[in-house]
């Protein structure tokens, strides 16, 4: 009996990501926070579609007479993962450009140098 623990795990992931977005100044740490937030949302989608005792919705060599979990949240989550990878790559590229221009990736230092 695990009760509602998966939802609590989702909330912990999202809160950690939000914490690092709000309180950290390092651009790499902000990117890590974005990734954590995205992982929490993906886990929430998958958790919503779980059916008790279900197996993955694939008919190849599946056990007989067992319910299958909902396939639509998994398809949406696949889309979300690929878009997250593209976004993370863009964020890291912009961090690299900023490092080349200013020599640092701390956001408050960049703002101070700007004047």
């Amino acid at each position: 009996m695990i009760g509602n623990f998966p939802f609590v795990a989702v909330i912990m992931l999202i809160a950690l990501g939000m914490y690092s977005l709000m309180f950290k100044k390092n651009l790499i740490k902000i990117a890590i926070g974005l990734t954590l937030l995205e992982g929490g949302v993906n886990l929430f989608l998958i958790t919503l579609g779980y059916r008790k005792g279900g197996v993955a919705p694939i008919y190849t060599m599946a056990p007989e007479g067992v319910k299958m979990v909902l396939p639509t949240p998994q398809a949406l989550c696949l889309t979300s993962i690929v878009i997250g990878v593209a976004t993370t790559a863009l964020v890291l590229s912009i961090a690299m450009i900023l490092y080349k221009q200013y020599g640092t990736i701390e956001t408050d230092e960049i703002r101070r140098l700007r004047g």
Partner: protein
Amino acid sequence: MIGEMSRIVRTMTNIIFGFIVVFGFYVIAHGHLSPGGGFQGGAIVASAFALLLVTYGTEVIQQYIAKDLLSVIESTGLILFGSFGFLGISATYFYNIVANSGGLFGSPTVIGVNPGDLNTSGTIALMNIAVGLEVLAALGVIVLTMSAAAEIIQNKEKS
């Protein structure tokens, strides 16, 4: 990104690289039968590129993997995916008209639990291959570009 790593790492990379690429294409080709598909298989093949890049350094790898060729493969994958959607234009866009029609990927599937036949599922298998090509080329271009830029920035900092 400086130079190449030790001999142990290089030997293991030479052994493992082929297996990773073959496994990635296996996941792409069996996307309609087993867990996986175009996106996952493409990501696996791109991770093989990243392994090469970490082991041998950017300068050596850029002589063997052409970034322009990868760009062309990426555009070709996306165009192929869009045009496979047009196959079923007589009903709607993205209608799976090849399924259950005989021919390539067209033999009807057994209803219910079955061991799986590679020659089923119509346009889904073709689209898996197209999307797999696109994703492996896109992630490869991203990894190659970022590592080359990191090298240039590092050199500029040193001088």
